[in-house]
């Protein structure tokens, strides 16, 4: 495995959530190859238009995309729709992150092919644990489709 290859793409507009998520993942020293994209448009540019972020180009097999739903410009639903509707990217696991279990888009996400759906807990302990479990599952336990 190329050590610089991006394994986790985090699409999140909230800087604090992003920082806490990245911190939680890195705390285990397991997941260092994380790319943070600040909104849906960046995600689409990165995946489909060859745009570089942090000097990184999109490769075909990130282990997981952590996708926030509520974002300015292009929202999570639209990104999900593109990822799952494209031959090239539809096998990439997408975990939807949201602030609320009341999200009316939950059903829509599953219909569009989201692999998982996570409500970000308020408490950092829970939040941290959730993020780490998530990373652990998709990066270590899950056998990606060849």
């Amino acid at each position, binding site marked *: 495995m190329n050590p610089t290859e991006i394994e986790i793409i985090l699409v999140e507009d909230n800087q604090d959530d992003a920082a806490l998520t990245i911190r939680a993942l890195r705390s285990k020293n397991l997941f260092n190859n994380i790319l943070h994209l600040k909104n849906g448009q960046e995600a689409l540019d990165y995946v489909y238009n060859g745009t570089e972020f942090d000097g990184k180009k999109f490769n075909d097999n990130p282990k997981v995309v952590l996708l926030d739903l509520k974002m300015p410009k292009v929202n999570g639903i639209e990104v999900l729709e593109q990822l799952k509707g494209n031959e090239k990217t539809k096998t990439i696991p997408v975990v939807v992150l*949201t602030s609320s279990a009341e999200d009316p888009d939950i059903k829509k996400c599953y219909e569009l092919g989201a692999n998982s759906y996570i409500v970000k807990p308020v*408490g*950092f302990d829970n*939040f941290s644990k959730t993020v780490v479990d998530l990373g652990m599952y998709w990066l270590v336990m899950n056998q990606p489709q060849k």
Partner: protein
Amino acid sequence: MKKRRLNGSGNSINSLEASDILKKDVRVEKILNLLLKYTLGDYSVRETVSEKGDELDAIIIGLNTLGEEAEASGKIVRDFESRVTNIMSVLLKYTLFDFSEKVAIGGVGDELDAIAIGLNTMAEELQSARETETAHLNKIEDTNRFLDTILENIPNMVFVKEAKELRFVRFNKAAEDLLGYKKEDMIGKNDYDFFPKEQADFFTSKDREALSKEGVTDITEELIETANGPKWLHTKKIPLIGSDGKPAYLLGISEDITRRKSSEDKIKKLNSELQNSINQLESTNNELEAFTYSVSHDLRAPLRAIHGYTNIIEKEYGDKLEGEAKKMMASVMANAIKMGQLIDDLLALSRLGKKELQKREVDMTDMVNQCIDELKRSVKFPNAKITVEPLHKITVDPALMFQVFFNLVSNAVKYSSLKEKPVIHISSVKDGDEVIYMVRDNGTGFDMRYYNKLFGVFQRLHDASEFEGTGVGLALVKRIVTKHNGRVWAEGEVDKGASFYIALKIN
């Protein structure tokens, strides 16, 4: 004078001799008298014959016979005339349909008698035919009167038009009242004589349509400009088939639906106003929903940041902090968690509004026991004595009703936790078409003075330092029960405990 004339006309040669003879016999005078009468057409006179039997007597006999014969033939003529007169006068009466008199039969057996018999027979036959006809006409008249009475008293407008030119032939009282035109004015006229062309065109087209098919042509709404202003009618048109099998008349029955129509219009208007209000309400609701979602979503993110960073500070820089600072850090995090809980509770409450009830029959004893099991897992459970009587089954939304009992039992546990021996009792009783469920505790109770705040959102009757809570639990209970068309109430006394009651309809 007779003498003179006889003398005057007598033969002058024999006049002396003849006058002598005549003077000698009175019979001569009688003969002359007879002759005179006969020449005047009076044949009724006869002369007596003497016993002499001479020529003079022979003449008298001859004259008498002549007179008799003449008299007889005159009578025949007179009889004939009077019989003809009789026939004529009776015949005249017959022509005036007076069959009361019969022609007298002469008894002669001649042609006149034959005519008279014929006439009498004919009169009898005519008389009987006329009686039959009269009876028939009376019957028709009766029927007509019968139908007219019905027609006139039908409260709906009834009219009949002939099929050819659609002119009115019948028109009842209700029609007069409705249209404001007199029967006499309508009969013989058609729609174009009374109504605006556009309307008349419409009526006529419907008339033709009705005449072209069998059964009823139903015109549920038509506008008609009457002498009393515009009216709405519900009209049924029916073809009346003549003896030739073709429609001869058109029967129309109209109901005045003007009032109904105006009520309908009013209702429609009200409905559309109502619909507007509903739309507004819906859009407000949607906005509110979007707002609620947004609030829940956006309020949680900063809370995560607050809690997250505080947590990191505590973990990574904890050794540099004093005890007091650590305590405050813990307080910051506890408050963040509590606010998260508040948001979740509030959201649950608002979500309830739009949720459809999914009812089924529920074993309430089972449900309450599950509540207790769950409570034992989730909170620090004091050593309370909880007794559950067998509860009545009921048809409710199980998930929501679970929430109700979970809240009530956890309240009971919470508010009795400071007692030495907390006792909680759950029971139910059937009352008419309701089941009343009771959750009773011997805890800290509440002051009935504040009862009106008990089920309010964010209303709390106890200090947060004493009992934790967001003030949403009972509000949620009330909303769920109300949504089930049930009732909820409570009784309490400070330090003596509280009882909560839920009355639910049995289906």
